[in-house]
């Protein structure tokens, strides 16, 4: 399979088939917490894409040149958390200084996802992921792109959820259902809908 085809499979898998929120059930906290308004959902989505891509790149290097080399893969979680937290802090400082406009739109969301499980999830899943031939492990570029597409997948469902919840605000519904209960039911129905993508053969 050509590399472009490989990319297509990776994108489809990360966005629809193995969606981080609706299929892997990672990153549910921001999914339910920041999906009340569309504009904050966009901000959060962009921040997640950004952090997932950066984290995939750095954790790949840490994993390959440190953990595998010294035979301490069992410390993966702790090493990755350390790396991601430091990275996000660093990036936050850089953009606060050099890109105040970007900081204003992303700034408040960055600390929220520093130790988010979806970000850690993509880093850990990257280390064991294989290409569609079932033998070749992900190289550096694969990992970074997979991080990016996973972030896009997260953003897609976050935006869909925010759009639905803004409409739900206008609906007359039983008092006990308002707010979080209906959001959780909605999340469940969305997950069932995304389950349908499992049938794709690519």
């Amino acid at each position, binding site marked *: 399979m050509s590399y472009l085809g490989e990319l297509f499979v990776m994108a489809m898998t990360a966005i629809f088939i193995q969606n981080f929120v609706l299929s892997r059930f990672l990153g549910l906290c921001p999914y339910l917490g920041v999906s009340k308004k569309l504009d904050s959902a966009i901000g959060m989505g962009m921040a997640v894409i950004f952090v997932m891509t950066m984290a995939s790149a750095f954790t790949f290097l840490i994993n390959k040149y*440190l953990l595998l080399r010294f035979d301490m893969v069992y410390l993966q979680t702790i*090493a990755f958390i350390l790396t991601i937290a430091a990275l996000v*802090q660093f990036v936050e*400082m850089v953009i*606060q*200084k050099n890109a105040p406009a970007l900081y204003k739109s992303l700034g408040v969301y960055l600390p929220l996802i520093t130790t988010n499980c979806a970000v850690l999830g993509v880093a850990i899943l990257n280390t064991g992921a294989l290409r569609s031939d079932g033998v070749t492990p992900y190289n550096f570029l694969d990992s970074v792109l997979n991080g990016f597409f996973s972030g896009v997948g997260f953003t897609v469902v976050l935006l869909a959820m925010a759009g639905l919840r803004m409409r739900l605000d206008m609906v007359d519904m039983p008092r006990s259902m308002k707010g979080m209960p209906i959001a959780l039911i909605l999340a469940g129905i969305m997950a069932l809908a995304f389950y349908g993508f499992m049938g794709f053969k690519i």
Partner: protein
Amino acid sequence: MSLIILESTALLGTIGIPVLIIGALGLIFGLVLAIASKVFEVKIDPRVEDIISVLPGANCGACGLAGCAGYADQIVHGGEAVNKCAPGGAATAALIANIMGVSADAMQQKVAVIHCSSGGHDNTKWKYNYEGVNSCKAAVNVAGGPNSCPWGCLGLNDCQAACAFDAISVDANGMRVIDFDKCTACGACVKACPRGLIQLVPINRNVYIKCSSKDKGPEAKSVCGSTHPCIGCGICSRKCPVQAITITDNLARIDYDKCINCGLCATVCPTKAIQDLLAGCRKKAEIDPESCIGCTICAKVCPVSAISGEVKQLHVVDKDVCIGCERCVAKCPKKAIEMV
């Protein structure tokens, strides 16, 4: 013996190397962040942080800026006035003034008042039965709203939904009741009401014209469900001792900068459209016979001619006529008048 030493060395290696590596990793990251925090330091005026900490943090937007942080930033860098925070009130203004080293102009505490006495279940006339999106903003777009009065309250509680301080409740009749203790005059309900019925009124003014109809008298009477419409007759305007009431477009409005809270307008209104919260609770003036010098000033300022007496003679207040406006108290040169 040598075996034990060998084993413990191996153990030290097994534990020690990962500890060393992870420790070193943490140390490097820590150092990088420490250096970065110096290199990429953004200088923030400490006064901004101080002001943010004294603001209420409700981000209500009553100051006209984007949230409390935006207001704090504008105070320090944009020269914004320190007394614009409605929820914080005078106390917050004083704190900010202290941080900025300026004097705070006294801020008038206000509350929201709904200028309509209709909108409940049994005091509204309906044109049709509205069954749509449960919002005033949506309902006004359907044939000019479901209620007969095109100026009046629709009763779908957009103002209540907009209130971030839980100050608006709905009573058994479906009328909105504003809790003045909770109201911070942030103005969210003022913006939320599509009919523009809500006005922010100084909290020490208790006389409200509870109607916003600009229809002519007979028309206003025929559509008003509460039977208390303003018909624009102008009696209140003529009777007001301080000319605080003006009639425009068949509607009386009180200028609260002039209003002295006497409640006279409420007593003369033929349709009872004016609500006086203090009606019956006002104290009456009483002149101390020993201090009165008979200067006649009190008799001249009394809007209802309740004070009588000759020059250089003791003056007396007719308590049945007195409306308790306290104008005489303010004017008496001998401080001989008390409210009892």
